[in-house]
């Protein structure tokens, strides 16, 4: 266990997760106006119609898979009588299927974003950086699955990576467990941690506004005029800007 391991797997995750939590609170307090997925459907909808649902639903499947793999200990599934081989087969098939759906969607979205001038122009430097990081995380994750689980016949990450992951939340990081895992797993975990680091400052915040309360809300909403400005609304709102030709913008965003 080297000093680098201690930093990468024992310190860095806490930096990232602190940024994740504090960053979201800060963003919510100061930039509710900017809290949106900034949809580009208005520019182009033909590709988006299939690519975006594929990407998002595939990703939801992947997230469920990660929850099962990382959060639920192996002992629990075994107590239910699920043998490691059975678990592995299910994880592999489910993971590959969800990953493939997500990947096809992602390729569609990426091509669309690059090929449509309007969308390319609406992509901010912040977006580009986030897409790059997200792309690396997804690429590494798919590489892990294809190389270790498919070609090499399976690596039981639940005996190393998962233990480390859970230990972060007990504030007793089991660094040696992850340090012993294959490099691809380590890189995937670190890149994901980095994604958590930048998450609150990107458009990814839209994940936390999934409007599930819509299911219970009455259809018509009434509010009184005198309602105080909501706590957390920015005092000086991020304003609107004058309409100018793209590329000749003088006003600052």
């Amino acid at each position, binding site marked *: 266990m080297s000093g680098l391991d201690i930093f990468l797997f024992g310190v860095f995750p806490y930096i990232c997760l602190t940024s994740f939590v504090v960053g979201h609170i800060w963003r919510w307090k100061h930039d509710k106006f900017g809290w949106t997925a900034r949809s580009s459907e208005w520019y182009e909808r033909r590709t988006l119609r299939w690519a975006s649902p594929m990407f998002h639903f595939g990703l939801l499947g992947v997230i469920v898979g990660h929850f099962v793999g990382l959060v639920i200990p192996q002992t629990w599934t075994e107590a239910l009588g699920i043998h490691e081989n059975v678990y592995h087969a299910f994880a592999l098939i489910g993971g590959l299927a969800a990953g493939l759906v997500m990947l096809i969607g992602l390729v569609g979205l990426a091509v669309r974003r690059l090929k449509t001038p309007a969308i390319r122009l609406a992509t901010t430097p912040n977006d580009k950086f986030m897409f790059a990081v997200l792309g690396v995380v997804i690429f590494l994750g798919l590489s892990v699955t294809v190389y270790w689980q498919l070609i090499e016949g399976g690596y039981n990450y639940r005996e190393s990576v998962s233990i480390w992951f859970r230990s972060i939340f007990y504030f007793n990081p089991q660094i040696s467990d992850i340090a012993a895992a294959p490099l691809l797993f380590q890189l995937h975990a670190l890149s994901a941690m980095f994604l958590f680091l930048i998450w609150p400052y990107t458009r990814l915040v839209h994940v936390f506004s999934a409007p599930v309360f819509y299911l219970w809300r009455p259809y018509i909403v*009434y509010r009184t005029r005198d309602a105080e400005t909501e706590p957390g609304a920015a005092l000086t709102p991020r304003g609107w800007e004058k309409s100018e030709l793209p590329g000749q913008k003088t006003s600052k965003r």
Partner: protein
Amino acid sequence: MRVMAQMGMVMNLDKCIGCHTCSVTCKQTWTNRTGVEYVWFNNVETRPGLGFPRRYEDQEKWKGGWKLDRRGRLRLKAGGRAKKLLSIFANPNLPDMEDYYEPWTYDYDSLVSAPAGSDDFPVARPKSLVTGKDMSIQWSANWDDDLGGTTETGHEDPIVQKIGDKVKFEFEESFMFYLPRICEHCLNPACVASCPSGAMYKRAEDGIVLVDQDQCRGWRMCVSGCPYKKVYFNHTTGKAEKCTMCYPRLEVGQPTVCSETCVGRLRYLGLFLYDADRVAEAATVENEHDLMNAQKSILLDPHDPEVQRQALADGIAPDWLEAAKNSPVYELACKYNVALPLHPEYRTMPMVWYIPPLSPVVDALTETGHDGEDIGNLFGAIEAMRIPIEYLAELFTAGDVEPVNDVLRKLAAMRAHMRNVNLGQPVDESIAEAVDMTVAEIESMHRLLAIAKYEDRYVIPPAYEAAANSLLDELPGCSVSFDSEPGDRGVQGDAPIPVTIESFHLTKQRLEAESYEDLDYKQ
């Protein structure tokens, strides 16, 4: 009965000359910003025509508004809550840039920076405001203005398609009128119901429908949910924006920008009182032809003592009740019965109503050499001109021609009667009786519709003005702020009176004065 107040508008289409002043002043006030270049909170459509966005009235395609399900219950046409959440990653019913238009500007700079002595004539090329590149302009908010190009596109008008191929677009046989449109501020707004984030709401005081910009997450369900397509997507901020009925102006007693600047003085602003408990019931009436009367039946008579008692009990201020009694929109809709809602069949209970235009009939009549103000001729023409009237009926009464006929006959009677009065001819009471009105009623309707004094057109409840001092600072474009510290708004102590309040009262006085002598501030 639960009494609520609703700010409403009525537009008298006979007086609309299609000058687009309302659209332009609205745009200068509210949507001259990046991301909303294509947005017209107020637009004026030539009808027959495709409208903006193109063919927005085709609800089989866009799925806006409400419908009744098989068991007669009110449902969003685009599907309920679960379906909305499942289609949140790509809204299947969203109009895109092609349905509105790609906004552009012109490269004006090339006109002044072209080198002297060049043989080439400098040209201001159109440049896309979305990509910044040269572009070819294919469509806009007013492409078919004044029936331009309708020999090509006219038959795509969803209403023309509905009434069959009887509408002629040949120059000699066509009819035409203008339809200015803002947000309808509906009693049963489908946009509010469609918003997954709960960011859209109806103000309890005046029924104005607004988008909370801090709460909107840009899911775009309101844009597709609104059958009038009057909620727009700001493609830069990723949030929904819409007509606010100029609430910052109404709150200080000023009419909306579109009303104030209307050249034809055709807009009326005022309060409706309605029974909030019966909105859903009225919107659920089975026969579409009954929807207008169902909506009228929930509008309450402010002169009814029972309504007044209940209104006060429900927290409506006495001066608002007073404003409701003087409301020109209530008079036009429910006393004279000449105002009709736009597309009641969408079941949203719209609150911007229209007086259908008699002018297509009068124009056709005078073109044939007949006297266009003779009552017999007018009544005959209303009977004979099926196509324009069917068209109007599809717009205002879900296709029922009778109410449109009734309104046009009233307008015709008013025209004929006032011609007699102005020419000093004996009053013919049979004209008024033919439309079930009295001479006095016709003349007071004439005062409201044709004289249309400023204070008769705009009856804005004064209770707003109590808060005016602090709110004036927030008026767009003209605020003079004396704030010493952030958050310290309003006029206190011996601070100077903001210029806006002074000019507001002066303007109001000038507009309401009968003559120059009445003014206190003669220069």
